[in-house]
């Protein structure tokens, strides 16, 4: 269906609003699987990380991995979701070759955590997206299709997952992405998940419906699966909203169904009916006792939660007077944020924090992105900043030193000595050079004295060239200006 058919219905298009809820599955960074002691590890030879329990052999029984519970509770606490001191595991029954037991151990009626919210920034304002629940479950294995044959790899079977279900509080693809980013940042920050969408350790399904603005009743929703990057989440939701509006405007009804996103063609398509016609027949997992969390267990986890990206960002803006953009860049990766904060501690008020932020963002991160190399020690990087800020070397030399530091790991002072980059600041030396330059450029000098002010820059350049960039540009300016003034007055 083509939107152009509705040119005269443009108003109609804008009279709709989207209602979006997200279901996020995130793998947990536990050492072992959720219900057995097999290693929770990615990329090993198929079916090498398995045991009777995760193979679903007859007679095998699950045992709850407390580390998994701990990470789930940590996530819940960080996301402001209420912890349920008693929760139950349940079986979700369905047949599929990657599901060895024929059921997935999950949580259904009584999840470990429910009722919370995540604050996101949208158009500069804060918006709270309510979270319905967070629960623990196990992942399925993987099917590998080669030609006409399908193979089952159960290394992933039984690895721990948390599922986080939002309320339908999201109203645009952009909001969906900022919710996901915020969520992922938090999980990665707290070492709960590696947040890798491409490898599938952080996955998202979107429930989308549209309705006329102001309408109370929710429209019929479609569930979109198979979106494995933030960009695709935005595109898939965008497409789906348009599709549903098209359906309604052309007099049809949106059907409740599961649709798959095809990133190549940027469309969503219905899954075959049979695959989604599940009655999961949930019931309490009789092999596991209720999960009871005592207050001490919860408070210990609470203590282990560090400052979250959102709070960090706000603090950077307030405490360090950084821009929102800079704060965001600095807090996106916990390691970078920690690095930045280490340097601020070393600095102890000597250099303006804004300048340090610039060094980290524009020089260090930029250089790291462009080239291979290792991040220098905090002390070394701060010393480099000091060398430049104290005018011992100029900014250009600073860049050269940084590149060398990344490549070799050497200390900045050693590099400065080695490359003879120390700035020439002594007035006598600079004066000598200026005199030399005047001598060599008599014509230009006359023009400059005659009023051709543009040539000032030319002389600065020539002096820098002669000193191979080491002269302190400020000093050069100063002394040069003095000499020109003298000439103008008729001196020398």
């Amino acid at each position, binding site marked *: 269906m083509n939107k152009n058919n509705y040119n005269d219905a443009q108003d109609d298009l804008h009279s709709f609003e989207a209602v979006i809820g997200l279901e996020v599955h995130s793998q947990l960074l536990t050492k072992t699987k959720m219900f057995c002691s097999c290693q929770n590890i990615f990329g090993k030879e198929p079916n090498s990380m398995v045991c009777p329990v995760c193979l679903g052999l*007859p*007679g095998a029984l699950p045992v709850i991995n407390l580390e998994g519970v701990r990470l789930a509770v940590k996530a819940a606490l960080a996301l402001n979701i209420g912890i349920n001191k008693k929760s139950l595991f349940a079986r979700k*029954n369905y*047949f599929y070759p990657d599901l060895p037991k024929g059921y997935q151990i999950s949580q259904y009626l009584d999840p470990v955590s429910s009722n919370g919210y995540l604050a996101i920034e949208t158009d500069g304002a804060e918006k709270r997206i309510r979270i319905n629940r967070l629960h623990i479950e196990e992942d399925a294995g993987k099917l590998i299709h080669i030609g006409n044959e399908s193979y089952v790899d159960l290394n992933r079977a039984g690895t721990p997952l948390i599922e986080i279900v939002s309320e339908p509080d999201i109203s645009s693809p952009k909001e969906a992405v900022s919710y996901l980013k915020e969520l992922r940042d938090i999980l990665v920050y707290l070492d709960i998940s590696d947040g890798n969408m491409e490898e599938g350790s952080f996955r998202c399904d979107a429930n989308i419906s549209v309705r006329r603005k102001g309408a109370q009743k929710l429209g019929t929703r479609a569930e979109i699966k198979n979106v494995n990057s933030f960009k695709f989440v935005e595109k898939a939701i965008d497409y789906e909203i348009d599709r549903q509006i098209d359906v309604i405007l052309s007099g049809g009804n949106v059907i409740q169904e599961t649709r798959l996103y095809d990133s190549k063609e940027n469309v969503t398509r219905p899954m075959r009916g*049979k695959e989604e016609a599940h009655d999961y027949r949930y*019931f309490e997992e*009789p092999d596991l006792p209720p999960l009871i969390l005592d207050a001490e267990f919860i408070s210990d986890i609470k203590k282990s939660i560090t400052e979250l990206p959102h709070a960090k960002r706000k603090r950077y803006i307030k405490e360090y007077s950084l821009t929102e953009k800079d704060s965001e860049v600095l807090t996106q990766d916990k390691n970078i944020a920690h690095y930045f904060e280490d340097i601020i501690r070393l600095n102890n008020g000597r250099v303006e924090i804004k300048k340090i932020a610039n060094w980290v963002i524009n020089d260090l991160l930029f250089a790291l992105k462009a080239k291979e190399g290792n991040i220098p020690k905090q002390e070394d990087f701060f010393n480099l900043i000091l060398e430049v800020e104290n005018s011992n070397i100029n900014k250009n030399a600073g860049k050269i030193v940084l590149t060398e530091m990344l490549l070799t790991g050497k200390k900045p002072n050693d590099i400065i000595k080695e490359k003879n980059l120390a700035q020439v600041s002594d007035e006598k030396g600079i004066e000598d050079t200026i005199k030399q330059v005047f001598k060599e450029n008599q014509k230009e000098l006359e023009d400059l004295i005659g009023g051709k002010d543009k040539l000032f820059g030319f002389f600065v350049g020539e002096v820098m060239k002669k000193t191979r960039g080491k002269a302190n540009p400020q000093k050069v300016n100063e002394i040069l200006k003095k000499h020109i003034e003298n000439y103008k007055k008729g001196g020398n």
Partner: protein
Amino acid sequence: MDLSNLTIHQINDLLKYREVKSADITNSYIERIKKIDPVISAYLYTDFEEALSNAEAADKIIQKNKDFPYLTGIPLSIKDIFLIKGKKTTCASKILNNFISPYDATVIKRLKKNNYVFIGKTNMDEFAMGSSTENSAYKITKNPFDLNRVPGGSSGGSAASVSADLCAGSFGTDTGGSVRQPASLCGVVGLKPTYGLISRYGIIAFSSSLDQAGVIANDVLDAAIMLKAVAGFDEKDQTTRKFEIKDYPEIVKRADKSIIKGLRVGIPVEFFSEGLDSKIHSKIMEIKDLLKDLGAQVVNITLPDTKYSVAAYYVIATSEASSNLERYDGIRFGGRFNEGKGIQSLDELYRKSRESGFGKEVKRRIILGTFALSAGYYDAYYKKASLVRKLIIKNYKDSFNDVDIILGPTSPTPAFLIGEKISDPLSMYLSDIYTISVNLAYLPALSLPAGVVDNPTKKGGVLPIGLQLISPWTTEAKLLSVAKVIEDEVKFRDKYTPVI
């Protein structure tokens, strides 16, 4: 010398005083199995080579150590629901026809530590679903007291193997009476311990919240010995608990008539109503009088919700079973239909494999359970049944405020004829009417031979009947002690032997 009609403690004495070797004992059983089992069909398969090598290993241990575990060198049979590493485990189902277990059940691990002798796997109702062992996909086991009759079920092979002296004791499982009912029908002792006392790890699941391993033995002391060897917390089964494991054999040995004095015995009126064979009724009343004579305070009690127990049980058990049996889908286990040839779709592979791999009763229960858990029916069935279960637990809890132990029949009838109930599932289900509520309430219970009744189809023949003792959670020591005193009075083993 025929060494195959001894109890475990008798064999243990002989081994201890070096009167015989385990190899001699084992050979005696092997000879008897070769002679008799073709008639009884208690075993699905035997492993005599393994048995003899276990016996030799046990003999070496006996020679070296003065102190060795009770079960050292004792030939035991194992219901084919326990996984033994490197051995076939079929659960009497075609769908596991060629399943070789890659690991040991915790019970088996502990038996191996006790240097037991593994002699063979016993027949059972497929996936432990049934009360006659007629639902085995492989063979029909006969009752040693009358070869035309069933041994009970689902641990019918185990009960028959002990009753016919084809082993010294057997491990079975009891989900709704599967140890006690066949023990009752075969004239042996059957103990179902408290849920969580014995690990379920490595036991093929039928209904996880009801299944419990149990022992079938020649006498009460043997049952105590077998229980002690395998009971206790297992980190691989989170439904086991750190219950105190007592020295059951020593406690049983010390038990005498004096423990009955002042014992409060409850007779649940609901267990003596319509449906109970009148001869069994009077036999249990004799036991009641016996206890009274020994100084017990016998009172009538009521378990008012007993009438709902069969219904609640069949909802819960079939629901859990429908889920537990999903893994047998033809993808990994035994019965992939026609090895997948000519199969057009995944769905068809599942359907045909399960259709051809499961027997009739298993399918019936899968369908029942699937229905009970279906969207829209969950509240009416599974949830309701779980509520009834809570009521039944409360019934017992209330009763145990007033009494120490409950006495009743194990089975409403003695062993029935092969084929008599197989086409009438409801009457078959009622075979477990007195045993089912015990599983729902997680309680320990024991079936003890109480005597015999005349065999109506065989002149001069008798059929054993069992009494059931039920006690509060984790009071196996008391349960076994009381049973021991009754056993000494009834002297069943001295009076009655199977026809074989």
